């Protein structure tokens, strides 16, 4: 048998957590350093996947499949495609940065914090690696618990409220998904006579229309909450504002992707007909989210809340691209998942750095910081521009592919979504200007120190990725394209349900004469 890459990568953090558990809680610095070492080593172990994964190879690679609960047909079944391998690698890259980013911020219960971070890592990777619905669900819930504690223990003043809201929201979503999984599971037994929770088996099922609709709705709701899609997003600003910097970073950079990834991996391929039936609803909600998130972001007085609402807007783009069902748009969505992780992750790190200096997120309390923190100003500017989608940086790659890929099918939706590009510049530059430009009109802003070496180490890898993906995105796009094409085939190959048929006609017409159809 080949080397079990995924299992190694998956459980390495737990091993690390066990190690950290052995260090006395009073030795904070030792705990931080050990966790950093564990996460860096973890990244080193995972990195070979970047080269070992063959873009043109099998659908799923590094597959491990061993029976787990035989009687129920549950298997320990892991594997990655181009999309999940990138998301997993990005997650693993992010963890050392998150540890570095909370070096000063987290000073209570340091040991517990770092153990939870490592458990969380395993939870997140499990979701990306799972090819069995039961395994998926286990890791999905596993990931929820550490995050709940991270917000609830190390959060801001209203952390309990935020944590409970976060938990209830995602938990309700999770339950719906569980019901869906069980229903599918029994339906599979009913049709084939055998129990299975393997993703491939369940995708092969031809679920009848009504059932498919209900199941899709269950899964879709679970994932839409996680994304979060308008109007299920209100847990996000609370969670972000209250979470510690590292919590916000992971929440934005990885946990939100669980929602879009869930659509990509489960909800859409499992229920292709229903996906197409609800496509117009979701696409419209996505576009509303783009504009609405941007507008609400515009008027936020709190930096973190602004970035949180900007996530609603950005993930609207990702959802729109996914449901446009063209390879171009979905390629854009996939790369945009990474991009949003990079730029929003970096933005939350930046918020955290400002908080460590000034103990506030209120935009009004800053001003003129470019003069006192020039290096910080430069990196903050680059991250801001990445978030705005400036061509040459990473954000543009995703947004453009999404919009150009959607435009061929839904010119009006894509056109309206493009307004989000204007608004992004508006709210981001407004924030940047108020925080960084103008006179230093508050005494306490006069002496803030510029970036420390540790902070450089946090931001530089992300800035490097911003340029890499912006200037030369091919290595990323190449790895995901075959997987995305396969995804489109699954969805396009599905027999067209009655409701979608009328839609289909529009789609065909749109292909020929996009403008005419749009008008």
């Amino acid at each position, binding site marked *: 048998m080949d080397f079990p890459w995924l299992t190694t990568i998956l459980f390495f953090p737990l091993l690390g957590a066990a190690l950290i558990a052995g260090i006395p809680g009073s030795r904070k610095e030792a705990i931080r350093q050990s966790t950093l070492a564990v996460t860096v080593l973890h990244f080193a172990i995972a990195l070979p996947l970047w080269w070992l994964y063959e873009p043109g190879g099998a659908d799923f690679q590094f597959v491990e499949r061993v029976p787990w609960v035989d009687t129920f047909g549950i298997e320990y079944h892991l594997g990655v495609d181009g999309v999940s391998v990138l998301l997993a690698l990005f997650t693993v890259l992010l963890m050392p940065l998150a540890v570095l980013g909370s070096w000063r911020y987290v000073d209570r219960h340091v040991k517990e914090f770092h153990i939870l971070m490592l458990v969380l890592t395993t939870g997140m990777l499990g979701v990306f690696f799972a090819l069995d619905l039961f395994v998926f669900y286990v890791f999905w819930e596993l990931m929820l618990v550490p995050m709940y504690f991270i917000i609830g223990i190390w959060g801001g003043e209203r952390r309990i409220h935020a944590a409970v809201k976060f938990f209830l929201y995602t938990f309700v979503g999770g339950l719906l998904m569980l019901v869906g999984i069980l229903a599918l599971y029994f339906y599979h037994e009913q049709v084939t006579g055998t129990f299975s929770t393997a993703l491939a088996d369940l995708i092969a099922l031809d679920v009848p229309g009504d059932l498919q609709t209900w199941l899709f709705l269950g899964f879709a709701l679970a994932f839409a909450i996680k994304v979060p899609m308008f109007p299920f997003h209100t847990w996000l600003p609370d969670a972000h504002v209250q979470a510690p910097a590292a919590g916000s970073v992971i929440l934005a950079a990885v946990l939100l992707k669980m929602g879009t990834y869930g659509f990509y991996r489960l909800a859409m391929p499992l229920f292709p007909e229903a996906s197409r039936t609800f496509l117009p609803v979701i696409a419209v909600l996505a576009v509303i989210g783009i504009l609405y998130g941007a*507008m609400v972001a515009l008027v936020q007085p709190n930096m973190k809340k602004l970035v949180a609402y900007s996530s609603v807007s950005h993930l609207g783009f990702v959802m729109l691209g996914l449901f446009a069902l063209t390879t171009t748009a979905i390629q854009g969505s996939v790369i945009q998942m990474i991009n949003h992780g990079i730029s929003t992750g970096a933005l939350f790190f930046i918020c955290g750095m400002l908080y460590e200096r000034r103990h506030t997120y209120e935009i009004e309390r800053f001003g003129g910081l470019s003069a006192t923190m020039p290096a910080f100003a430069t990196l903050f500017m680059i991250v801001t521009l990445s978030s705005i989608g400036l061509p040459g940086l990473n954000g543009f790659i995703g947004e*453009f592919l999404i919009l150009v890929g959607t435009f*061929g099918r839904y010119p009006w939706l894509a056109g309206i979504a493009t307004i989000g590009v204007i608004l992004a510049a508006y709210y981001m530059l407004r924030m940047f200007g108020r925080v960084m430009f103008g006179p230093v009109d508050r005494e306490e802003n006069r002496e803030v120190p510029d970036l420390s070496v540790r902070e450089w180490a946090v931001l530089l890898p992300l800035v490097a990725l911003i340029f890499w993906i912006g200037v030369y995105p*091919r290595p990323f796009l190449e790895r995901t394209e075959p997987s995305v094409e396969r995804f489109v085939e699954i969805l396009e190959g599905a027999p067209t349900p009655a409701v979608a048929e009328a839609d289909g006609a529009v789609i065909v017409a749109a292909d020929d004469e996009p*403008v005419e159809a749009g008008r």
Partner: protein
Amino acid sequence: MENLLWVVPALPLVGVAFNGLLGRRAGKGVVAFVGPGVVGAAFAVAIALFVHLVGLPAGERELHQTVYEWLVGGGFGAPVAFLVDPLSMTMVLVVTGVGFLIHVYSVGYMHDEDERGFARYFTYLNLFTFAMLLLVMADNFLLMFVGWEGVGLCSYLLIGFWFADRDNAEAGKKAFIVNRIGDFGFLIGIFLVFSTFGSVAFADVLPAAGAALTVGGTLAFWIALFLFLGAVGKSAQIPLYVWLPDAMAGPTPVSALIHAATMVTAGVYMVARLHPIYQMAPSALAIVAGIGAATALFAATIGLVQNDIKKVLAYSTISQLGYMFLGVGVAAFTAGIFHLVTHAFFKALLFLGAGSVIHALHGQQDMRYMGGLKSGMPITYWTMLAATLAISGIPPFAGFFSKDDILWRTWDAGHPLLWAIGFVTAGLTAVYMFRLFFLTFHGKFRGTDEQAEHVHESPPSMAVPLAVLGVLSLIGGWIGIPAALGDPLGGLGNAFEGWLAPVFERGEVAGELHPAVPPIEYGLMAASVAIATLGLLAAWWLYVRNQRLPEELSLRFRAAYTVLRNKYWIDEAYTLFVVRPFNALSAFAWRVVDDGLIDGLAVMGTGRLVRFGSGVASRWETGYVPGYVLVFFGGALAILAYYLLG
């Protein structure tokens, strides 16, 4: 040569890397060398390319280089690839040539900055040059868009260069956001192009425009119009011009390079570059011409009454860009580009001259406190005179030839009304430009005594670029002398038209095909010289001869004066009708929809409902055992009854 195209944009990029990463430590001396040096080197390579291009037969003057595949996803693909033909060659020469002069000038102008500021300035300026070169050398829509937004970014950064002043930062932000509105149009245009042609490469799209689009068809119209929205933003035309006057907050060399000579002309270049598409959309072209003419006149009227020397030049730039759009809008693409080139010379010079004056007066920009600077600043004075004559259209200065070309072609294409607007604007241009000139250099000095003592000519790094541009303002137009004036230079003819002919040959209006020069062309030419001279004399009469008169006039025509002084209240109107309502709507979305309805009513309401429900349910849990027994029996009876009766 073809494989060397990438060198041109790469050179300024080297400057960006050096000045950005090492500039502060290397010191001002090194930055002052590297910053202009890389642009000068790019200019040298551009000259070599030009010589190479001229050596080729006219029909083969087109160089391509694909550097790498950049953005590929699904069926979409766009490489980083360059195209140099006579059109982009012209732009490259202007960008690197004028750009180089302004870089050199900046060394003197920005001398008071500290190491960090100096390095930052040249980093931005080099980055701008790089982005601008991408814009004009791109061989596809998407790379052009990269340059397009890149120059916008540099504009933002440089307008707000002195960011400690809140107003500068706000002006930069305004420029970026207004430009983004235009870029929205550009993007939609690209989407439409891709869904129509299946490619975004100029080489695929432009030759196919005739076949894929129908003349006057809606698709052609919308593609052209959306792309033009991008041009309207970048080139500061009605209704998106409002950012350019505010952009004067940046250092003056920046105004010269970005907000006069190069970036703002990108829209004109875009329309010219995409002329095969525009030709399929006559009504879109009519809109281009109409907006151009309207902007030309509108901005000129505002320019008449501004007191800030840079604001006059800003409105003048908007007005002159209007001329260029009028030119390309009547399908006189060569004329539009010709004016772009001469304007780059004289308007860059005007800004640099103004900068020289501001420099001498330690930051004074209000012309009411200038005057009589002629004697103290001879080089600035004489070069400014050349530029002022050029922009006013007095022969044989550069502006005369290009402006007259546009006016004549407008008339010739059958648009007497547009011609009349351009004609009146020409008169106004002479008035406001000589108003500026006389107020600044003639009469008595109206500033403080201290300033008067310190008035000095600028250092050589500033004076030499002024002199070079002064010469170009004089002779720059001689490359495009119309056939009507014969061939005074012996063999040069209308070299510019011949040079661009391969690019526009299929598109040009029939102007140059007229075998004989119609007498009316001489008439119109004489008329425009006359009105320019009249404007000059009027300015002299008002601002030299009868210096009280302007004030009397402003009192006499108070209403008109107030309207112009307040720039038609356009900024205020935008604030009132666009910005504030949008912000209010956003606040409503947050407070009412998000906090109130979604979170308050729906989410927390559900929570409360659950709590209420569980409260009701918990009442059943009384702990009173006989009660449970009773319920149990009741239930059992009910089930029994169900089976027995059912």
